[in-house]
């Protein structure tokens, strides 16, 4: 009990407000005056920020296309920027799709058709002297996608804010639970926007890797609590990553129920089981 009190007091004297949590042990600070190591609560909130800022980055890069289109940039220059932008928009939104897992408080994904339209608009070359129609279509598509991403980013930010006052143990358990639920549910293979472009594998990979990326921020706290489980999760993540690369790169449209999706599902479910066990560690 005495040691617990000492540990609690030590945490209370840490410089950052969010370091004043007492539920989860933190890694040993490395730097005396300012310690960049996040508290457990910060690590979970960083994952929400990863989603919110990621989606917002998609909005920003999409808006840049709209702004460029309003200026005197050539259609070729506009198209080059749009092709870069749509890649980021697709990747960042899909990487954050775990935020729609039941229980997060966010219930309505954005109209993914707006992303399809933006991608479609970048597939329209124009060699004519007057590309005003293509230009207008490109600007309209990116304006709509940017607006949808903006709303989605605000939803994610609101979900983050709603969690700021909660205990770190509850947040950590919840986060790992969301990761497990998302991966085992298989929803990452549903409502794909880019199948017609042969890029559904890219969407699926972004969704799964976006969920796996959350692990990096919270790993130190699971590692302190259960090093064995930490190692098992890392092995499971490596296996899922290998499976993803093998089955989504250059494969074209993925057949529902096909061997590629089955292999991904198996590896994702295995990793989800580990995340579920980790979630239980922090459950009350």
């Amino acid at each position: 009990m005495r040691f617990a009190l000492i540990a609690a007091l030590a945490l209370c004297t840490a410089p950052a407000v969010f370091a004043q949590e007492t539920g989860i042990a933190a890694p040993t600070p490395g730097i005396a005056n300012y310690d960049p190591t996040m508290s457990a609560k910060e690590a979970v909130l960083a994952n929400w920020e990863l989603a919110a800022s990621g989606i917002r980055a998609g909005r920003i890069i999409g808006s840049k296309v709209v702004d460029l289109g309003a200026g005197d940039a050539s259609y070729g220059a506009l198209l080059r920027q749009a092709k870069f932008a749509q890649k980021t928009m697709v990747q960042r939104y899909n990487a954050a799709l775990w935020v729609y897992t039941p229980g997060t408080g966010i219930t309505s994904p954005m109209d993914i058709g707006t992303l399809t339209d933006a991608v479609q608009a970048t597939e329209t070359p124009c060699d004519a002297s007057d590309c005003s129609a293509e230009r207008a279509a490109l600007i309209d598509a990116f304006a709509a996608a940017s607006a949808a991403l903006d709303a989605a980013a605000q939803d994610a930010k609101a979900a983050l804010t709603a969690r700021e006052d909660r205990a770190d143990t509850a947040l950590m358990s919840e986060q790992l639970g969301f990761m497990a639920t998302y991966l085992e549910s298989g929803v990452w293979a549903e409502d794909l926007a880019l199948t017609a472009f042969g890029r559904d594998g890219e969407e699926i990979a972004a969704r799964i890797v976006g969920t796996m990326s959350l692990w990096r921020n919270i790993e130190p706290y699971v590692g302190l609590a259960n090093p064995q489980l930490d190692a098992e999760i890392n092995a499971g993540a490596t296996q899922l990553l290998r499976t993803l690369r093998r089955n989504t790169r250059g494969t074209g449209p993925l057949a529902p129920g096909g061997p590629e999706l089955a292999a991904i599902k198996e590896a994702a479910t295995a990793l989800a089981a580990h995340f579920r066990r980790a979630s239980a560690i922090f459950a009350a």
Partner: protein
Amino acid sequence: MRRVLFALSISVCCGSALAEDDPIATAIEQCLSCHLQEDGQIDIVGMRALSGLPVEWPFLFEDAYDLDGDGIAGRIRFVSGDSGPMIAKYGKSLAAARFADFARIAGAAHGVDLSAPGVLDALETAFEVRSPEPHWPFPDPGTQARFEARGCAGCHVTETFELDGRTYMPLSDFLLHDLGQGLRRTAPLWGCRDCLNAADPHPTPPGK
């Protein structure tokens, strides 16, 4: 700002004896002693621009697991902040999100006392007013095309951002990459001229 200039004028005109009585002037003098160059500017380019880098910048390029298969994996680093996690952009290993935090790390490493009230703000101002403005890195479109063709733009990205009516190209994705010597931030090249034409600064480490 006025206090910084006052402190600096004391330091310059009256030597270090007076500065020792003022913890702010002392701290600034100690920090500048390692960074000040003969031309009166510090050796850190683009401090004002860096403070205005969009928060979302690294998200435009992040690919933590080399999802796109281009051989480059880069990850964002979050660090602790006063009111929640923040996205780091300062330091070779992305140790801090704010100048003040990075200064505290450097102060601890070099034994500089930065605990006096107001010293971090004064230090930031002192550094910003002496930090050279970045120049446009490419003398012509051909140089940029060669830079991109060599693959440099995979990390030293050629995207730009606007700040106070100026366009900046930091030539960094502000992500952590593993080049065989631990995770390192892509070095911004906005102070670089000759290095754009230099030999490959990233020789492949043995065994990689």
